[in-house]
Protein backbone atom coordinates (compact mmCIF):
# COMPACT_ATOMS: atom_id res chain seq x y z
CA UNK A 1 0.00 0.00 0.00
CA UNK A 2 1.51 3.28 -1.07
CA UNK A 3 1.35 6.40 1.15
CA UNK A 4 -0.99 7.90 -1.44
CA UNK A 5 -3.45 5.04 -0.98
CA UNK A 6 -3.23 5.48 2.76
CA UNK A 7 -4.22 9.11 2.40
CA UNK A 8 -7.13 8.19 0.19
CA UNK A 9 -8.32 5.60 2.67
CA UNK A 10 -8.42 8.15 5.49
CA UNK A 11 -11.49 10.26 4.72
CA UNK A 12 -13.66 7.21 5.30
CA UNK A 13 -12.62 7.15 8.95
CA UNK A 14 -12.13 10.87 9.49
CA UNK A 15 -15.70 11.62 8.63
CA UNK A 16 -16.70 9.81 11.81
CA UNK A 17 -14.41 11.95 13.97
CA UNK A 18 -17.00 14.59 14.94
CA UNK A 19 -19.46 11.86 15.88
CA UNK A 20 -16.87 9.96 17.92
CA UNK A 21 -15.84 13.17 19.69
CA UNK A 22 -19.45 14.00 20.48
CA UNK A 23 -20.06 10.56 21.97
CA UNK A 24 -16.85 10.69 23.99
CA UNK A 25 -17.66 14.11 25.44
CA UNK A 26 -21.37 13.48 26.00
CA UNK A 27 -21.03 11.67 29.36
CA UNK A 28 -19.27 14.74 30.82
CA UNK A 29 -22.41 16.77 30.35
CA UNK A 30 -25.07 14.12 30.85
CA UNK A 31 -26.81 12.73 33.91
CA UNK A 32 -27.93 9.11 34.26
CA UNK A 33 -31.25 9.76 32.59
CA UNK A 34 -29.58 11.28 29.55
CA UNK A 35 -27.08 8.43 29.46
CA UNK A 36 -29.92 5.92 29.49
CA UNK A 37 -31.62 7.76 26.66
CA UNK A 38 -28.36 7.60 24.73
CA UNK A 39 -28.04 3.90 25.60
CA UNK A 40 -31.39 3.12 24.00
CA UNK A 41 -30.44 5.32 21.09
CA UNK A 42 -27.42 3.00 20.73
CA UNK A 43 -29.51 -0.16 20.95
CA UNK A 44 -31.85 1.13 18.27
CA UNK A 45 -28.89 2.15 16.13
CA UNK A 46 -27.48 -1.36 16.34
CA UNK A 47 -30.88 -2.82 15.52
CA UNK A 48 -31.30 -0.35 12.68
CA UNK A 49 -27.87 -1.30 11.32
CA UNK A 50 -28.79 -4.96 11.53
CA UNK A 51 -32.05 -4.51 9.66
CA UNK A 52 -30.35 -2.18 7.21
CA UNK A 53 -28.23 -5.08 5.98
CA UNK A 54 -31.35 -6.99 4.99
CA UNK A 55 -33.76 -4.21 4.07
CA UNK A 56 -31.43 -1.43 3.00
CA UNK A 57 -28.61 -3.27 1.26
CA UNK A 58 -30.52 -6.14 -0.33
CA UNK A 59 -34.05 -4.72 -0.37
CA UNK A 60 -35.60 -7.72 1.42
CA UNK A 61 -38.68 -6.91 3.47
CA UNK A 62 -37.95 -8.35 6.89
CA UNK A 63 -40.82 -7.44 9.18
CA UNK A 64 -39.96 -9.99 11.85
CA UNK A 65 -36.66 -8.59 12.96
CA UNK A 66 -37.79 -8.36 16.57
CA UNK A 67 -37.81 -12.17 16.51
CA UNK A 68 -34.06 -12.31 15.91
CA UNK A 69 -33.57 -9.63 18.56
CA UNK A 70 -35.59 -11.80 20.95
CA UNK A 71 -33.56 -14.92 20.18
CA UNK A 72 -30.39 -13.01 21.08
CA UNK A 73 -31.87 -11.60 24.27
CA UNK A 74 -33.30 -14.93 25.45
CA UNK A 75 -30.14 -16.85 24.57
CA UNK A 76 -28.26 -14.49 26.83
CA UNK A 77 -30.93 -14.52 29.53
CA UNK A 78 -31.29 -18.31 29.70
CA UNK A 79 -27.63 -19.24 29.45
CA UNK A 80 -26.69 -16.60 31.97
CA UNK A 81 -29.34 -17.30 34.58
CA UNK A 82 -29.25 -21.11 34.30
CA UNK A 83 -25.57 -21.75 33.69
CA UNK A 84 -23.95 -18.51 34.80
CA UNK A 85 -22.18 -17.95 31.49
CA UNK A 86 -20.68 -14.42 31.56
CA UNK A 87 -22.55 -11.80 29.52
CA UNK A 88 -19.60 -10.80 27.37
CA UNK A 89 -18.94 -14.42 26.42
CA UNK A 90 -22.58 -14.62 25.43
CA UNK A 91 -22.28 -11.79 22.89
CA UNK A 92 -20.89 -14.04 20.15
CA UNK A 93 -23.07 -16.92 21.37
CA UNK A 94 -26.22 -14.81 21.04
CA UNK A 95 -25.08 -13.62 17.62
CA UNK A 96 -24.55 -17.21 16.51
CA UNK A 97 -27.87 -18.36 17.94
CA UNK A 98 -29.81 -15.59 16.20
CA UNK A 99 -27.86 -16.10 12.96
CA UNK A 100 -28.43 -19.85 13.02
CA UNK A 101 -32.12 -19.37 13.73
CA UNK A 102 -32.35 -16.95 10.81
CA UNK A 103 -30.59 -19.44 8.56
CA UNK A 104 -32.94 -22.25 9.50
CA UNK A 105 -36.21 -20.35 9.18
CA UNK A 106 -35.33 -18.12 6.26
CA UNK A 107 -33.65 -20.59 3.89
CA UNK A 108 -36.91 -22.28 2.87
CA UNK A 109 -38.57 -18.95 2.03
CA UNK A 110 -35.65 -16.90 0.74
CA UNK A 111 -36.90 -17.10 -2.85
CA UNK A 112 -40.07 -15.19 -1.95
CA UNK A 113 -40.23 -11.65 -3.20
CA UNK A 114 -41.37 -8.35 -1.79
CA UNK A 115 -44.63 -8.45 0.11
CA UNK A 116 -44.72 -12.27 0.22
CA UNK A 117 -41.49 -12.34 2.17
CA UNK A 118 -42.83 -9.54 4.33
CA UNK A 119 -45.88 -11.59 5.34
CA UNK A 120 -43.78 -14.66 6.10
CA UNK A 121 -41.32 -12.71 8.24
CA UNK A 122 -44.19 -11.15 10.19
CA UNK A 123 -45.17 -14.74 10.87
CA UNK A 124 -41.68 -15.63 12.11
CA UNK A 125 -41.66 -12.67 14.47
CA UNK A 126 -45.02 -13.64 15.91
CA UNK A 127 -44.11 -17.31 16.21
CA UNK A 128 -41.05 -16.39 18.25
CA UNK A 129 -43.02 -14.06 20.53
CA UNK A 130 -45.87 -16.48 21.09
CA UNK A 131 -43.42 -19.34 21.50
CA UNK A 132 -41.72 -17.40 24.28
CA UNK A 133 -45.06 -16.75 26.00
CA UNK A 134 -45.83 -20.49 25.93
CA UNK A 135 -42.76 -21.15 28.05
CA UNK A 136 -41.25 -24.12 26.16
CA UNK A 137 -39.53 -26.63 28.51
CA UNK A 138 -39.96 -24.08 31.28
CA UNK A 139 -37.03 -22.13 29.86
CA UNK A 140 -38.49 -18.76 28.91
CA UNK A 141 -40.68 -18.06 31.92
CA UNK A 142 -43.77 -17.37 29.83
CA UNK A 143 -45.24 -13.90 30.06
CA UNK A 144 -43.06 -12.98 33.01
CA UNK A 145 -39.91 -13.66 31.08
CA UNK A 146 -36.51 -14.36 32.58
CA UNK A 147 -35.28 -12.27 35.49
CA UNK A 148 -31.98 -11.77 37.24
CA UNK A 149 -29.60 -11.40 34.32
CA UNK A 150 -26.06 -10.44 35.34
CA UNK A 151 -24.11 -7.33 34.51
CA UNK A 152 -21.25 -7.71 32.04
CA UNK A 153 -17.87 -8.28 33.70
CA UNK A 154 -14.91 -6.93 31.74
CA UNK A 155 -12.29 -8.27 34.13
CA UNK A 156 -12.42 -9.46 37.74
CA UNK A 157 -13.61 -6.43 39.68
CA UNK A 158 -14.49 -4.45 36.57
CA UNK A 159 -18.25 -4.74 36.26
CA UNK A 160 -20.36 -2.71 33.89
CA UNK A 161 -23.20 -1.77 36.20
CA UNK A 162 -24.06 1.90 35.78
CA UNK A 163 -25.56 3.91 32.98
CA UNK A 164 -22.17 5.19 31.84
CA UNK A 165 -20.79 1.66 31.49
CA UNK A 166 -23.71 0.44 29.37
CA UNK A 167 -23.60 3.63 27.32
CA UNK A 168 -19.95 3.00 26.48
CA UNK A 169 -20.51 -0.73 25.86
CA UNK A 170 -23.33 -0.29 23.36
CA UNK A 171 -21.63 2.52 21.47
CA UNK A 172 -18.36 0.56 21.23
CA UNK A 173 -20.35 -2.29 19.71
CA UNK A 174 -22.08 0.14 17.36
CA UNK A 175 -18.72 1.59 16.32
CA UNK A 176 -17.28 -1.87 15.64
CA UNK A 177 -20.37 -2.80 13.65
CA UNK A 178 -20.14 0.35 11.59
CA UNK A 179 -16.48 -0.33 10.79
CA UNK A 180 -17.27 -3.86 9.64
CA UNK A 181 -20.40 -2.89 7.74
CA UNK A 182 -18.63 -0.06 5.93
CA UNK A 183 -15.94 -2.49 4.84
CA UNK A 184 -18.58 -4.88 3.60
CA UNK A 185 -20.45 -2.10 1.85
CA UNK A 186 -17.34 -1.16 -0.10
CA UNK A 187 -16.42 -4.75 -0.93
CA UNK A 188 -17.68 -7.15 -3.54
CA UNK A 189 -20.22 -8.36 -0.98
CA UNK A 190 -21.87 -4.95 -0.63
CA UNK A 191 -21.86 -4.63 -4.38
CA UNK A 192 -23.49 -8.01 -4.81
CA UNK A 193 -26.17 -7.07 -2.24
CA UNK A 194 -26.94 -3.82 -4.03
CA UNK A 195 -27.03 -5.57 -7.41
CA UNK A 196 -29.68 -7.94 -6.07
CA UNK A 197 -31.66 -4.97 -4.78
CA UNK A 198 -31.47 -3.25 -8.15
CA UNK A 199 -32.29 -6.17 -10.44
CA UNK A 200 -32.34 -9.73 -9.24
CA UNK A 201 -32.42 -11.35 -12.69
CA UNK A 202 -29.54 -9.22 -13.91
CA UNK A 203 -27.60 -10.06 -10.74
CA UNK A 204 -28.08 -13.78 -11.40
CA UNK A 205 -27.06 -13.44 -15.02
CA UNK A 206 -24.00 -11.47 -13.96
CA UNK A 207 -22.73 -14.36 -11.90
CA UNK A 208 -23.93 -13.45 -8.42
CA UNK A 209 -25.17 -16.24 -6.20
CA UNK A 210 -28.42 -14.49 -5.36
CA UNK A 211 -29.71 -17.05 -2.88
CA UNK A 212 -26.38 -17.22 -1.07
CA UNK A 213 -26.02 -13.47 -0.70
CA UNK A 214 -29.60 -13.02 0.45
CA UNK A 215 -29.06 -15.65 3.13
CA UNK A 216 -25.79 -14.06 4.14
CA UNK A 217 -27.58 -10.74 4.62
CA UNK A 218 -30.29 -12.35 6.74
CA UNK A 219 -27.83 -14.28 8.89
CA UNK A 220 -25.60 -11.24 9.40
CA UNK A 221 -28.57 -8.98 10.14
CA UNK A 222 -29.98 -11.49 12.62
CA UNK A 223 -26.59 -11.95 14.28
CA UNK A 224 -26.25 -8.20 14.86
CA UNK A 225 -29.79 -8.07 16.23
CA UNK A 226 -28.74 -10.92 18.53
CA UNK A 227 -25.86 -8.80 19.82
CA UNK A 228 -28.30 -5.96 20.51
CA UNK A 229 -30.51 -8.44 22.35
CA UNK A 230 -27.60 -9.51 24.52
CA UNK A 231 -26.78 -5.98 25.66
CA UNK A 232 -30.43 -5.13 26.11
CA UNK A 233 -31.02 -8.19 28.31
CA UNK A 234 -28.04 -7.38 30.47
CA UNK A 235 -29.00 -3.74 30.89
CA UNK A 236 -32.63 -4.47 31.75
CA UNK A 237 -31.73 -7.54 33.85
CA UNK A 238 -35.06 -8.96 32.69
CA UNK A 239 -36.42 -10.01 29.32
CA UNK A 240 -40.05 -10.63 28.54
CA UNK A 241 -41.99 -11.32 25.34
CA UNK A 242 -43.61 -7.89 25.52
CA UNK A 243 -40.37 -6.24 24.43
CA UNK A 244 -40.34 -8.09 21.11
CA UNK A 245 -43.69 -7.31 19.57
CA UNK A 246 -44.61 -6.64 15.99
CA UNK A 247 -44.55 -2.94 16.87
CA UNK A 248 -40.81 -3.25 17.57
CA UNK A 249 -40.21 -4.74 14.12
CA UNK A 250 -42.20 -1.87 12.65
CA UNK A 251 -40.00 0.59 14.55
CA UNK A 252 -36.83 -0.97 13.11
CA UNK A 253 -38.40 -0.71 9.68
CA UNK A 254 -39.09 2.98 10.30
CA UNK A 255 -35.49 3.56 11.36
CA UNK A 256 -34.19 2.30 8.04
CA UNK A 257 -36.87 4.06 6.00
CA UNK A 258 -36.55 7.40 7.80
CA UNK A 259 -32.78 7.41 7.56
CA UNK A 260 -32.48 6.20 3.99
CA UNK A 261 -32.23 2.63 2.73
CA UNK A 262 -28.69 1.30 2.74
CA UNK A 263 -27.24 4.37 4.42
CA UNK A 264 -25.29 3.90 7.65
CA UNK A 265 -25.40 7.57 8.71
CA UNK A 266 -29.08 7.42 7.79
CA UNK A 267 -29.63 4.59 10.27
CA UNK A 268 -28.12 6.70 13.04
CA UNK A 269 -30.40 9.60 12.16
CA UNK A 270 -33.38 7.27 11.97
CA UNK A 271 -32.55 5.62 15.29
CA UNK A 272 -32.20 9.06 16.87
CA UNK A 273 -35.62 10.02 15.58
CA UNK A 274 -37.27 6.83 16.82
CA UNK A 275 -35.60 6.62 20.23
CA UNK A 276 -35.36 10.30 21.16
CA UNK A 277 -38.76 11.29 19.88
CA UNK A 278 -40.80 9.63 22.66
CA UNK A 279 -38.49 11.18 25.26
CA UNK A 280 -38.79 14.67 23.86
CA UNK A 281 -42.55 14.37 23.59
CA UNK A 282 -43.07 12.68 26.92
CA UNK A 283 -45.38 15.49 27.99
CA UNK A 284 -47.74 14.92 25.11
CA UNK A 285 -47.91 11.15 25.38
CA UNK A 286 -51.50 11.22 24.18
CA UNK A 287 -50.70 12.90 20.90
CA UNK A 288 -47.30 11.34 20.33
CA UNK A 289 -48.43 8.81 17.77
CA UNK A 290 -50.53 11.40 15.98
CA UNK A 291 -47.53 13.64 15.54
CA UNK A 292 -45.35 10.68 14.64
CA UNK A 293 -47.75 9.67 11.89
CA UNK A 294 -47.80 13.18 10.52
CA UNK A 295 -44.00 13.22 10.42
CA UNK A 296 -43.95 9.90 8.54
CA UNK A 297 -46.41 11.22 5.96
CA UNK A 298 -44.38 14.41 5.54
CA UNK A 299 -41.25 12.30 5.12
CA UNK A 300 -42.77 10.21 2.37
CA UNK A 301 -43.86 13.34 0.54
CA UNK A 302 -40.76 15.51 0.91
CA UNK A 303 -37.89 13.10 1.36
CA UNK A 304 -39.00 9.73 0.04
CA UNK A 305 -35.41 8.46 -0.09
CA UNK A 306 -34.85 9.21 3.60
CA UNK A 307 -33.25 11.99 5.60
CA UNK A 308 -29.71 10.91 4.77
CA UNK A 309 -29.98 8.78 1.65
CA UNK A 310 -27.15 6.54 0.57
CA UNK A 311 -25.13 7.94 -2.27
CA UNK A 312 -23.90 4.53 -3.32
CA UNK A 313 -22.71 5.83 -6.62
CA UNK A 314 -20.03 7.95 -5.08
CA UNK A 315 -18.62 5.55 -2.57
CA UNK A 316 -14.87 5.75 -2.79
CA UNK A 317 -13.23 2.92 -4.63
CA UNK A 318 -9.71 1.99 -3.67
CA UNK A 319 -6.92 2.72 -6.10
CA UNK A 320 -9.03 4.49 -8.68
CA UNK A 321 -6.78 5.98 -11.36
CA UNK A 322 -6.44 9.75 -11.25
CA UNK A 323 -8.24 10.23 -14.55
CA UNK A 324 -11.30 8.37 -13.36
CA UNK A 325 -13.83 11.13 -13.67
CA UNK A 326 -14.84 14.67 -12.92
CA UNK A 327 -15.32 14.05 -9.21
CA UNK A 328 -11.79 12.77 -8.80
CA UNK A 329 -10.27 15.01 -11.38
CA UNK A 330 -7.91 16.70 -8.96
CA UNK A 331 -6.69 13.53 -7.24
Amino acid at each position, binding site marked *: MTPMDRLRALPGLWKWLPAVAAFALYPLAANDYLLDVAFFFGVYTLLGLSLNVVLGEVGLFDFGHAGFYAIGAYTTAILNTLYGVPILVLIPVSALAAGLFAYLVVSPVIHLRGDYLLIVTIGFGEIVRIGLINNPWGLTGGSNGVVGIDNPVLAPGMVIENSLGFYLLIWCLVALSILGLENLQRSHIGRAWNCIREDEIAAK*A*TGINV*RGYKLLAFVLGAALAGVAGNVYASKMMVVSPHSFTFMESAMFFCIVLIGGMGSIPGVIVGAAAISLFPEVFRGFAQYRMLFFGAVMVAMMVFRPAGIWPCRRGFLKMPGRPAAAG*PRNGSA
Partner: protein
Amino acid sequence: MGAPEVEAMEPARIMTPPADDVLLETRGLTKRFGGLIAVSDLDLDVRRGEISSLIGPNGAGKTTVFNVVTGIYRPDAGEVRLGGEGIGGWKPHRIVARGIARTFQNIRLFPEMTCLENVMAGRHCRLAAGFWTALLHAPGQRREERQAVDFCHGLLERVGLERFANELAKNIAYGSQRMLEIARALATRPRLLVLDEPSSGLNPRETEELIGFLRELSAEGLTLLIIEHDMNVVMGISDWITVMDEGRKIAEGTPEEIYHNPLVIEAYLGREDADEEGD
Protein backbone atom coordinates in the same frame (compact mmCIF):
# COMPACT_ATOMS: atom_id res chain seq x y z
CA MET B 1 -9.92 -24.94 -23.87
CA GLY B 2 -8.93 -26.65 -27.06
CA ALA B 3 -8.52 -30.00 -25.34
CA PRO B 4 -10.09 -32.90 -27.16
CA GLU B 5 -13.61 -33.36 -25.90
CA VAL B 6 -16.42 -35.85 -26.14
CA GLU B 7 -16.94 -37.70 -29.40
CA ALA B 8 -19.82 -36.72 -31.63
CA MET B 9 -23.10 -37.69 -29.99
CA GLU B 10 -24.68 -39.10 -33.10
CA PRO B 11 -23.65 -40.19 -36.57
CA ALA B 12 -22.25 -37.28 -38.53
CA ARG B 13 -24.90 -35.40 -40.42
CA ILE B 14 -24.46 -32.96 -43.17
CA MET B 15 -23.26 -29.68 -41.73
CA THR B 16 -22.82 -31.07 -38.24
CA PRO B 17 -19.34 -29.99 -37.22
CA PRO B 18 -16.95 -32.30 -35.38
CA ALA B 19 -17.74 -32.18 -31.68
CA ASP B 20 -14.35 -30.97 -30.47
CA ASP B 21 -15.00 -27.83 -32.42
CA VAL B 22 -18.19 -27.08 -30.59
CA LEU B 23 -18.22 -24.83 -27.54
CA LEU B 24 -21.93 -24.86 -26.81
CA GLU B 25 -24.35 -27.52 -27.91
CA THR B 26 -27.90 -28.37 -27.08
CA ARG B 27 -29.41 -31.75 -27.85
CA GLY B 28 -33.14 -32.31 -27.86
CA LEU B 29 -33.64 -29.18 -25.78
CA THR B 30 -37.29 -28.70 -24.80
CA LYS B 31 -38.96 -26.06 -22.68
CA ARG B 32 -42.67 -25.90 -21.97
CA PHE B 33 -44.74 -23.21 -20.32
CA GLY B 34 -47.95 -24.89 -19.28
CA GLY B 35 -49.41 -26.25 -22.48
CA LEU B 36 -47.23 -24.11 -24.70
CA ILE B 37 -44.07 -25.66 -26.07
CA ALA B 38 -41.70 -22.72 -26.36
CA VAL B 39 -38.70 -24.74 -27.49
CA SER B 40 -39.06 -28.18 -28.96
CA ASP B 41 -36.32 -30.76 -29.43
CA LEU B 42 -33.70 -28.20 -30.40
CA ASP B 43 -30.19 -29.16 -31.50
CA LEU B 44 -28.02 -26.07 -31.55
CA ASP B 45 -24.28 -25.90 -32.15
CA VAL B 46 -22.06 -22.93 -31.46
CA ARG B 47 -18.52 -23.44 -32.70
CA ARG B 48 -15.47 -21.98 -31.05
CA GLY B 49 -14.37 -18.60 -32.31
CA GLU B 50 -17.36 -18.15 -34.57
CA ILE B 51 -20.20 -15.65 -34.49
CA SER B 52 -23.42 -17.67 -34.53
CA SER B 53 -26.84 -16.17 -34.86
CA LEU B 54 -30.23 -17.40 -33.84
CA ILE B 55 -33.02 -15.89 -35.90
CA GLY B 56 -36.69 -16.45 -36.43
CA PRO B 57 -40.05 -14.72 -36.33
CA ASN B 58 -41.35 -13.26 -33.08
CA GLY B 59 -42.40 -15.92 -30.65
CA ALA B 60 -40.15 -18.52 -32.25
CA GLY B 61 -38.56 -19.29 -28.88
CA LYS B 62 -35.18 -17.66 -29.34
CA THR B 63 -35.08 -15.82 -26.05
CA THR B 64 -36.33 -18.94 -24.26
CA VAL B 65 -33.32 -20.80 -25.66
CA PHE B 66 -31.08 -18.07 -24.25
CA ASN B 67 -32.79 -18.24 -20.88
CA VAL B 68 -32.36 -22.00 -20.70
CA VAL B 69 -28.74 -21.89 -21.83
CA THR B 70 -27.90 -19.22 -19.22
CA GLY B 71 -29.77 -21.01 -16.44
CA ILE B 72 -32.63 -18.54 -15.93
CA TYR B 73 -35.01 -21.40 -16.87
CA ARG B 74 -34.55 -25.11 -16.32
CA PRO B 75 -34.90 -27.25 -19.44
CA ASP B 76 -37.79 -29.72 -19.38
CA ALA B 77 -35.89 -32.20 -21.52
CA GLY B 78 -32.67 -32.43 -23.45
CA GLU B 79 -29.13 -31.44 -22.72
CA VAL B 80 -27.05 -28.30 -22.73
CA ARG B 81 -23.29 -28.78 -22.90
CA LEU B 82 -20.57 -26.20 -22.63
CA GLY B 83 -17.22 -27.51 -23.80
CA GLY B 84 -18.58 -31.03 -23.37
CA GLU B 85 -19.76 -30.49 -19.81
CA GLY B 86 -23.49 -30.78 -19.13
CA ILE B 87 -24.77 -27.51 -17.67
CA GLY B 88 -28.51 -27.99 -18.19
CA GLY B 89 -30.46 -26.94 -15.10
CA TRP B 90 -27.48 -25.36 -13.35
CA LYS B 91 -27.93 -22.15 -11.37
CA PRO B 92 -27.13 -19.05 -13.45
CA HIS B 93 -24.15 -17.98 -11.34
CA ARG B 94 -22.47 -21.37 -11.83
CA ILE B 95 -22.98 -21.13 -15.55
CA VAL B 96 -21.45 -17.65 -15.58
CA ALA B 97 -18.48 -19.00 -13.64
CA ARG B 98 -18.08 -21.69 -16.32
CA GLY B 99 -17.90 -19.05 -19.01
CA ILE B 100 -21.23 -17.98 -20.46
CA ALA B 101 -22.08 -14.29 -20.13
CA ARG B 102 -25.17 -12.63 -21.52
CA THR B 103 -26.97 -9.39 -22.20
CA PHE B 104 -30.72 -8.79 -22.22
CA GLN B 105 -33.11 -7.68 -24.92
CA ASN B 106 -34.41 -4.90 -22.69
CA ILE B 107 -31.19 -3.70 -21.14
CA ARG B 108 -30.95 -4.77 -17.50
CA LEU B 109 -28.32 -2.72 -15.74
CA PHE B 110 -28.10 -1.82 -12.08
CA PRO B 111 -29.54 1.67 -12.59
CA GLU B 112 -28.66 3.26 -9.24
CA MET B 113 -25.04 2.12 -9.37
CA THR B 114 -22.20 3.75 -11.30
CA CYS B 115 -20.99 2.47 -14.63
CA LEU B 116 -17.80 1.30 -12.95
CA GLU B 117 -19.74 -0.59 -10.31
CA ASN B 118 -21.89 -2.21 -12.97
CA VAL B 119 -18.78 -3.60 -14.62
CA MET B 120 -17.35 -4.53 -11.22
CA ALA B 121 -20.47 -6.60 -10.66
CA GLY B 122 -19.51 -8.65 -13.68
CA ARG B 123 -16.08 -9.14 -12.18
CA HIS B 124 -17.68 -10.57 -9.04
CA CYS B 125 -17.52 -14.21 -10.09
CA ARG B 126 -13.75 -13.99 -10.61
CA LEU B 127 -12.97 -12.60 -7.15
CA ALA B 128 -11.53 -14.92 -4.56
CA ALA B 129 -12.05 -12.78 -1.45
CA GLY B 130 -14.50 -14.13 1.08
CA PHE B 131 -16.70 -12.73 3.83
CA TRP B 132 -14.08 -12.36 6.55
CA THR B 133 -11.43 -10.73 4.38
CA ALA B 134 -14.06 -8.29 3.14
CA LEU B 135 -15.29 -7.60 6.68
CA LEU B 136 -11.75 -6.86 7.85
CA HIS B 137 -10.77 -5.06 4.66
CA ALA B 138 -7.68 -7.30 4.62
CA PRO B 139 -4.68 -6.42 2.44
CA GLY B 140 -5.28 -9.34 0.07
CA GLN B 141 -8.85 -8.27 -0.50
CA ARG B 142 -7.78 -4.66 -1.05
CA ARG B 143 -5.19 -5.70 -3.62
CA GLU B 144 -7.69 -7.86 -5.45
CA GLU B 145 -10.26 -5.07 -5.39
CA ARG B 146 -7.72 -2.64 -6.80
CA GLN B 147 -6.86 -5.03 -9.61
CA ALA B 148 -10.55 -5.49 -10.36
CA VAL B 149 -11.02 -1.72 -10.48
CA ASP B 150 -8.15 -1.38 -12.94
CA PHE B 151 -9.46 -4.23 -15.05
CA CYS B 152 -12.92 -2.70 -15.18
CA HIS B 153 -11.61 0.74 -16.03
CA GLY B 154 -9.83 -0.95 -18.92
CA LEU B 155 -13.08 -2.48 -20.10
CA LEU B 156 -14.92 0.84 -19.83
CA GLU B 157 -12.18 2.40 -21.91
CA ARG B 158 -12.61 -0.30 -24.53
CA VAL B 159 -16.30 0.38 -24.94
CA GLY B 160 -15.68 4.13 -24.88
CA LEU B 161 -17.39 4.82 -21.56
CA GLU B 162 -14.41 5.62 -19.36
CA ARG B 163 -15.51 9.21 -18.91
CA PHE B 164 -18.82 7.97 -17.44
CA ALA B 165 -17.11 5.66 -14.94
CA ASN B 166 -18.56 7.52 -11.94
CA GLU B 167 -21.89 8.34 -13.56
CA LEU B 168 -24.98 6.40 -12.51
CA ALA B 169 -25.89 3.83 -15.13
CA LYS B 170 -29.44 5.18 -15.45
CA ASN B 171 -28.09 8.59 -16.51
CA ILE B 172 -26.19 7.56 -19.63
CA ALA B 173 -27.64 7.37 -23.13
CA TYR B 174 -29.45 4.25 -24.33
CA GLY B 175 -26.73 3.27 -26.76
CA SER B 176 -24.11 3.69 -24.05
CA GLN B 177 -26.18 1.58 -21.67
CA ARG B 178 -26.09 -1.24 -24.18
CA MET B 179 -22.32 -1.01 -24.47
CA LEU B 180 -22.10 -0.92 -20.68
CA GLU B 181 -24.14 -4.10 -20.47
CA ILE B 182 -21.72 -5.76 -22.88
CA ALA B 183 -18.77 -4.51 -20.83
CA ARG B 184 -20.37 -5.99 -17.70
CA ALA B 185 -20.76 -9.31 -19.48
CA LEU B 186 -17.16 -9.19 -20.67
CA ALA B 187 -15.96 -8.54 -17.13
CA THR B 188 -16.93 -12.11 -16.25
CA ARG B 189 -14.21 -13.29 -18.64
CA PRO B 190 -16.60 -15.39 -20.72
CA ARG B 191 -15.77 -18.09 -23.22
CA LEU B 192 -19.14 -17.53 -24.85
CA LEU B 193 -20.93 -14.19 -25.04
CA VAL B 194 -24.66 -14.43 -25.60
CA LEU B 195 -26.33 -11.26 -26.89
CA ASP B 196 -30.11 -10.87 -27.07
CA GLU B 197 -30.91 -8.39 -29.84
CA PRO B 198 -27.88 -6.17 -29.31
CA SER B 199 -28.81 -3.71 -32.04
CA SER B 200 -32.41 -3.06 -30.99
CA GLY B 201 -33.01 0.59 -30.22
CA LEU B 202 -29.66 1.69 -31.62
CA ASN B 203 -29.36 4.22 -34.43
CA PRO B 204 -27.49 3.22 -37.62
CA ARG B 205 -24.21 4.75 -36.48
CA GLU B 206 -24.36 3.02 -33.10
CA THR B 207 -25.25 -0.25 -34.81
CA GLU B 208 -22.24 0.15 -37.05
CA GLU B 209 -19.99 0.71 -34.02
CA LEU B 210 -21.50 -2.26 -32.25
CA ILE B 211 -20.86 -4.56 -35.21
CA GLY B 212 -17.29 -3.33 -35.39
CA PHE B 213 -16.83 -4.05 -31.70
CA LEU B 214 -18.34 -7.53 -31.92
CA ARG B 215 -16.05 -8.33 -34.85
CA GLU B 216 -13.10 -7.19 -32.78
CA LEU B 217 -14.11 -9.47 -29.93
CA SER B 218 -14.55 -12.34 -32.33
CA ALA B 219 -11.12 -11.69 -33.83
CA GLU B 220 -9.69 -11.97 -30.31
CA GLY B 221 -11.10 -15.47 -30.10
CA LEU B 222 -14.33 -14.89 -28.18
CA THR B 223 -17.25 -17.03 -29.30
CA LEU B 224 -20.52 -15.18 -29.79
CA LEU B 225 -24.13 -16.25 -30.02
CA ILE B 226 -26.56 -13.53 -31.07
CA ILE B 227 -30.29 -13.17 -31.39
CA GLU B 228 -30.95 -10.46 -33.90
CA HIS B 229 -33.84 -9.04 -35.85
CA ASP B 230 -31.95 -6.70 -38.11
CA MET B 231 -31.22 -8.87 -41.14
CA ASN B 232 -28.44 -6.58 -42.33
CA VAL B 233 -26.65 -7.13 -39.05
CA VAL B 234 -27.27 -10.89 -39.10
CA MET B 235 -26.14 -11.41 -42.66
CA GLY B 236 -23.18 -9.12 -42.25
CA ILE B 237 -21.74 -10.51 -39.06
CA SER B 238 -22.64 -14.18 -38.74
CA ASP B 239 -20.47 -17.16 -39.58
CA TRP B 240 -23.34 -19.50 -38.92
CA ILE B 241 -27.08 -18.97 -38.67
CA THR B 242 -29.71 -21.13 -37.03
CA VAL B 243 -33.32 -20.38 -37.87
CA MET B 244 -36.15 -21.18 -35.48
CA ASP B 245 -39.87 -21.13 -35.99
CA GLU B 246 -42.50 -22.12 -33.45
CA GLY B 247 -39.92 -23.55 -31.11
CA ARG B 248 -38.22 -25.76 -33.68
CA LYS B 249 -35.09 -25.44 -35.73
CA ILE B 250 -36.11 -25.15 -39.36
CA ALA B 251 -32.72 -24.47 -40.93
CA GLU B 252 -29.08 -23.81 -40.28
CA GLY B 253 -26.18 -22.82 -42.44
CA THR B 254 -23.97 -20.01 -43.60
CA PRO B 255 -25.59 -16.63 -44.29
CA GLU B 256 -25.46 -17.45 -48.00
CA GLU B 257 -27.30 -20.72 -47.54
CA ILE B 258 -29.90 -19.23 -45.22
CA TYR B 259 -30.50 -16.36 -47.60
CA HIS B 260 -31.56 -18.77 -50.31
CA ASN B 261 -33.28 -21.36 -48.15
CA PRO B 262 -36.94 -21.66 -49.24
CA LEU B 263 -38.05 -22.84 -45.78
CA VAL B 264 -36.67 -19.71 -44.18
CA ILE B 265 -38.20 -17.45 -46.78
CA GLU B 266 -41.52 -19.19 -46.23
CA ALA B 267 -41.33 -18.85 -42.46
CA TYR B 268 -40.62 -15.16 -42.75
CA LEU B 269 -42.91 -14.31 -45.65
CA GLY B 270 -45.72 -16.39 -44.22
CA ARG B 271 -45.52 -14.25 -41.14
CA GLU B 272 -44.68 -10.95 -42.64
CA ASP B 273 -47.72 -9.25 -41.05
CA ALA B 274 -47.07 -10.61 -37.60
CA ASP B 275 -43.44 -9.66 -37.90
CA GLU B 276 -44.22 -6.08 -38.81
CA GLU B 277 -46.62 -5.76 -35.94
CA GLY B 278 -44.03 -7.14 -33.59
CA ASP B 279 -41.39 -4.65 -34.58
